[in-house]
């Protein structure tokens, strides 16, 4: 079985779907001749030609809007944001037009909007965002955020096949940093809406996703070694709709929950998750649900500053210890 990076897995997922289904095409800035800012679509133009790999002007609202229009007509566009930070320019189009199309007008809008997300790469305030919270709040959108190479592939394929609009947050820190054996002939499809048990444990549940899954696992190993406590790590994979069942069943098992995300504290998804646990598993809680998040600032550029603002493995260890001791 060949070792495949997260980025390569994502590529493969798109390639397979484009081979399988003629209605899939991709559009975005510099994705054709150049193969994309991160080379995610390298070679796609040669393989599929310019009518399925479309270089666009710098017009995020038009990219998403045009994708929606084409999707209404039965195509399945993948719209790339060069960095996910620029999705803010399509915020109106996504939240008002795309998200409501089925509800108000009975229109299917099977688009995928994807792009390099997240920090830890010294990208500064505008190339480090993880803007999941901006869209989490809009009924009609689905949000996915893979942590593993397998899910990078499985979720892009599932997203492309989904009949609703999906925003796919791919973590640029993971692109070439993680590798996994992925069997060649196997059809990998990760169901949207289902969390993944990344590590079983009995003493504390960490709910997390994307790059933070890896830091949570690191923290869990350290705590296992140094504190003899077993942390369960739940990788949400899909953020909207959320796998409440998985969250509750782990909560009921460990009775202590730590939510870990890379976004700022205020208004980050941890709030919603806390509320849901509170509503559905309050009686099972032996300690308050707590969260490890970024600080409430923009993401600064200098490595020292970024490292301070974003959550680190040591933070998770420190938080887990306090919760275990509660």
């Amino acid at each position: 079985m060949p070792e495949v990076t997260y980025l390569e897995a994502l590529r493969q997922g798109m390639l397979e779907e484009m081979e399988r289904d003629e209605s899939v095409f991709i559009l975005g800035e510099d994705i054709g001749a150049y193969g994309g800012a991160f080379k995610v679509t390298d070679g796609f133009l040669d393989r599929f030609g310019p009518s399925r790999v479309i270089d666009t002007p710098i017009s995020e609202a038009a990219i998403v809007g045009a994708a929606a229009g084409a999707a209404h007509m039965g195509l399945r566009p993948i719209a790339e944001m060069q960095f996910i930070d620029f999705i803010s320019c399509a915020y109106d189009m996504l939240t008002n037009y795309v998200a409501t199309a089925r509800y108000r007008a009975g229109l299917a809008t099977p688009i995928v909007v994807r792009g390099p997300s997240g920090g830890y790469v010294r990208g500064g305030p505008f190339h480090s965002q993880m803007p999941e919270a901006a869209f989490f709040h809009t009924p009609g959108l689905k949000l996915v955020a893979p942590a593993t190479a397998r899910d990078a592939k499985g979720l892009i394929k599932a997203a492309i096949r989904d009949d609703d609009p999906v925003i796919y947050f791919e973590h640029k820190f993971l692109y070439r940093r993680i590798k996994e054996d992925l069997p060649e002939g196997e059809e990998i499809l990760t169901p949207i809406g289902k969390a993944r048990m990344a590590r079983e444990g009995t003493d504390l549940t960490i709910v997390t996703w994307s790059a933070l899954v890896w830091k949570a696992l690191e923290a869990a190993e350290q705590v296992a070694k140094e504190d003899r406590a077993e942390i369960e790590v739940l990788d949400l994979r899909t953020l909207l709709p959320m796998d409440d069942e998985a969250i509750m069943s782990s909560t009921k098992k460990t009775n202590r929950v730590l939510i870990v995300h890379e976004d700022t504290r205020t208004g980050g998804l941890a709030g919603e998750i806390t509320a849901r646990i509170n509503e559905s598993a309050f009686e099972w809680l032996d300690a308050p649900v707590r969260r490890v998040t970024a600080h409430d600032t923009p993401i600064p550029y200098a490595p020292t500053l970024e490292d301070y603002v974003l959550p680190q493995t040591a933070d998770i260890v420190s938080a887990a210890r306090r919760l275990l001791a509660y």
Partner: protein
Amino acid sequence: MATTAKTRVIPAGLSREQLHEIYYYLRLTRSLEERLRNLYRQGKVIGGLYSSLGQEGESVASAYALAEGDILSPLIRNLGAMLVKGAKPVEVLRQYMAKATSPTAGREMNIHFNDLRLGFLGQISHLGDMVPVMAGIALSFRLRREPRVGLVYVGDGATSTGAFHEGVNFAAVQRVPLVVIVEHNGYAYSTPTSRQTAVERLADKARAYGIPGRTVDGNDVLAVYEATKHAVERARAGEGVTLLELVTYRRRGHAEHDDQRYQPREEIAAWEGRDPIERYTRQLRDNAWIDDAGIAAIDDRVSEELDRAVADSENDPVAAPDTVLRSVYLDPPAADVLWFRRRDA
């Protein structure tokens, strides 16, 4: 020959039947809006009522230039275009009254509804957003090599939006089969065009996109038809986007509640004198393309159809909340009923 010496050759390749059909849609649009106004006064319309009085000519004639399979996206004042494309008066009435039987089952307002099979895509309120979406629909035509054309309406005001710009530019550089119609009706809500943009002729906006732009008298039904037809044919032939500025005038307020205090009375009066339907009717009569009996027959037909439509809508039940949580997604099929509304929770 049965026709008199006065009969002229019909321009733009239209047949007599087509001329009559255009007249029918013009009359239908205006009369439907009159019916709506009555219902509004009776308090039966929920929310605002929008009128296209004085603009029916450009709306109907431009839509009439499309073929089956083509898709347009109307604005709030394009009732006429939607009717041409097959929207039913009864649907419009039900929408305005938020009936359960309306095309959106009470979820959306007024003429915000669509039927892609018939060829119209419903708008959202956010001005400009439909331009990129229609660019995408036209892109799908190009990608699939279908001989179909898209047409999108925007107002003078909406040309100021970023979405308009991104959409037209995208469409132009991708050479998709799209016609962009700028309805220059003098105002955006209360804002005169001179406060919206420093250009005189909105057709000049085409220059920024490397596409042809043309200004047409929007109250001249046949001129609008001809210009749109030409743009549609260009698009269908793979020659890309055309922008048409149709110069017209919004004779009523932004919506029914608007007192129009910012529109000079003389200005409104002057445009009353250029009413597109009267002008077209005169043209039909003067050229003997129709006679008085013909007109009366159409007027009667419209009147009867609308009587029926009002009767078929007025007493329909308002939408009931039993389906209101459905179809946010295809899957899951319905949003959760929240705990405080559930008996079991």
